[in-house]
């Protein structure tokens, strides 16, 4: 059994740090929630939460912000996985924006994300009166995320102000907030993409099959390849591909790969020369686009 025998000390340290954070937040906040994106980072967070509260069950609900453009396999996985865990799943969608036909090709990726993700997230947090929301963001993902605290304070509008963040020392987290404010909590702050994959492997954590390479029907869009459903109007062909990062269908590219097992994914990752979010169109609209989105309340 790998899951009990593994002794990689770096991973153990990261695991311990995250478990500590989960427990602190649950002890000090009234209504925590876990932002469940169905991706690999969420999968790791959930395992860490299980460990933090064992033998008790995970003591908070999961919130999935469903843009309506998520891969079908993600939704199927989500329902099966949360069902097995027995946790409460809240799925929230910005119905008004969906009804008005928000789509990146029509209104641009920035506006589309703003409505379907940021707005929907802020509404769902306000509606559930959640005062702490766990997110799977990592500092190694993107340059503005490198500046994030573990406890990231948001005002009543959910906005992030990077210039006036609270200093965060040792593992002594300041949990004091006003009633109208909330925090985002990032237990995976110090994890890298490689750490996440190694942990998934060591712990045998279930993930969405889209991460594994298999022959799939794809289309070519500019420099990237996407699953056929992203651009149904384009000519398709079949290739061995997988997803390195999961987002919305129209904005997430696939990579050519033969990695159909976790060890192969890890080996492939070590040889990668391109970053994880390169295939996510939303990060590259303008210089500093993640920072702008975060200031507006994106997680």
């Amino acid at each position, binding site marked *: 059994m*790998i*899951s*009990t025998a*593994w*002794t990689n*000390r*770096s*991973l*153990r*340290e990261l*695991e*311990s740090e995250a*478990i*500590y954070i989960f*427990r*602190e937040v*649950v*002890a000090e906040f009234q209504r925590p929630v876990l932002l469940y994106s169905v991706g690999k980072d969420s999968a790791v967070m959930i395992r860490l939460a*299980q*460990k*933090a509260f*064992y*033998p*008790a*069950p995970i003591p908070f609900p999961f919130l999935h912000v469903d843009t309506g453009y998520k891969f079908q396999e993600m939704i199927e996985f989500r329902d099966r996985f949360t069902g097995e865990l027995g946790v409460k799943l809240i799925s929230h969608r910005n119905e008004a924006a969906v009804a008005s036909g928000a789509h990146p090709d029509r209104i641009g990726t920035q506006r589309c994300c703003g409505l379907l993700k940021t707005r929907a997230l802020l509404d769902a947090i306000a509606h559930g009166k959640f005062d702490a929301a766990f997110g799977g963001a990592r*500092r*190694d993902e993107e*340059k*503005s995320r*490198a*500046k994030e605290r573990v406890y990231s304070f948001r005002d009543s509008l959910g906005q992030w102000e*990077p*210039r006036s*963040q609270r*200093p*965060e*020392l*040792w593992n*002594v*987290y*300041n949990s*004091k*907030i*006003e009633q109208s404010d909330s925090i985002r909590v990032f237990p995976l*702050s*110090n994890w*890298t993409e*490689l750490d996440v994959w*190694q942990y998934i*492997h*060591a712990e045998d954590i279930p993930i969405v099959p889209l991460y594994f390479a298999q022959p799939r029907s794809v289309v070519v869009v500019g420099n990237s390849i996407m699953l056929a459903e992203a651009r149904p109007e384009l000519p398709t062909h079949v290739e061995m591909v997988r997803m390195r990062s999961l987002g919305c269908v129209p904005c997430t590219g696939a990579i050519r790969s033969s990695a159909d097992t976790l060890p192969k994914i*890890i080996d492939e990752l*070590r040889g*990668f*020369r*391109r*970053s994880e979010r*390169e295939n996510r169109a939303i990060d590259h609209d303008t*210089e500093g686009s993640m*920072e702008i989105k975060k200031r507006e309340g994106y997680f």
Partner: protein
Amino acid sequence: MIVSQRLDLNELPQSIDLNQSQSIVRLLTCGSVDDGKSSLIGRLLHDTKNVYDDQMDAIQNGTLNRSSRKIDLSLITDGLKAEREQGITIDVAYRYFSTPNRKYIIADTPGHEQYTRNMATGASTADVAIFLIDARHGVLKQSRRHAYICSLLGIRYAVVAINKMDLVGFEQSVFERHELEFNGVLAHLGFTEPYFVPVSALDGDNVVTRSERMPWFSGPSIIEYVEHLELVTNTHSAPFRFAVQLVNRPNIDFRGYSGRIASGSVQVGENIVVLPGYRKSRVAKIVTYDGDRDIAFDGEPVTLTLENELDIARGDLFVQVDKQPSVGTRVIANVVWMQDVPLKIGRTWLVKHTTRILKANVLRIVQRIDVNTYEPLQANELGLNEIGQVEFELSQAIYFDSYVENRSTGAFIVIDPDTNATAGAGMLVELVAEQFAETTSADRVKRFGHGVHLIDLGLRHRLAHRLERRLFNMGGLPIVIQYDANSEVIEALQSIGAIVIFVGSTNVPNLPENDEDALEQLVTKFFDNEKVMPGDYEV
């Protein structure tokens, strides 16, 4: 210890299910933009192959490029928009890279004095400090400041990169001169054998790969050195400490206490003491998701069950029977102040220590330290980015371990109760035993239950004596004296915290005629005032 193995980046990383004993190494880079800090970090990431091609492309295509010289690796570390525009680091950023053997986290903090708090933040979790010294300028006051902050925050390992060797002709004598001088600075600050290395961060000499341009230097590069550094943390050797984070009670058959072992280790069957109250117990089980354990060590998150039933809550501390922390309400701590509103004598703050939040009243500033010269200064307050020793009176007893002996239980943060801001960082220095503490006016208030008062009751002698008796019976310190007493006597009575009741003057006090009513009014006034009463807070 100088190691000579060269780093082979083409070596395959060890597979994850093999025994691997290397832990994460947390580095802090100390220097400013001018010292080449960003270039150094850029080199560390780039030369260990931790920068992706698309990130390099983005740097090449970036709208702002500081130097025209090939590719500017310092841009790898740029973060916020304002920072890119101004070409400076404002905030702490964390960078990640790994070699086949180790995972590294770099805290990238600004070096200027107005960012002392950010450096302290980065230093709080760092194992190794990398000091950058510009070979042309040598040891400047900023280097001394950085060294002081790192030492104060408990960093014990230091690498000193004498940078920009290319601009001094790779001259050995320049390197040796700076080494001698800075070694003297570090020796006083408790660093373990600092390692000096001549570097050109811009070109990468001796950062990851060894330089061909300084044949007189045969030591390892910065990363080769850190790669083989055996880090010893004091939380491993310190006595067992475990602060309860939460009580885990999924059903009536299970009651466990979840937390992270702050220091030392614990075994099943071991006797422990639970604070507060010095309650004795024994560890029944060490529970984890991955199965029960026989023993667990510092840093591990576990859930402990005990053999007897005790009323235990978050904030309680489990400790080793034969090595218990001292317990008291008055401490002296080193404090780094982090907000604009200063730390002042007499104000009450919140302190978060382990998993407890206490109220803390500032009794005195023992001294402020000039971070550039290390000179102790007199002070009545600590402003933003200032460092000093402060004496606090806490609302409840604190479980005291000094920061020097225990980097985990010796640390606390100060929270401003008005704004919720993290106002300061504290490192416990000593517990002030009652018998050695100066007796302050706050102590007297606490003892007598009232502050200093002067009242003239004129010719109402009977009221004066009844008041004296009443206050005295309540534990106060009243005294009736003639209104024309010597002023030195009056001052002395005030300084011991008395309520001085004058009689004999022709003054007619503004009080009810009836003695009973006058008495009630006075007692209420003296005992129900809004004076701070240490030790009597509600949390």
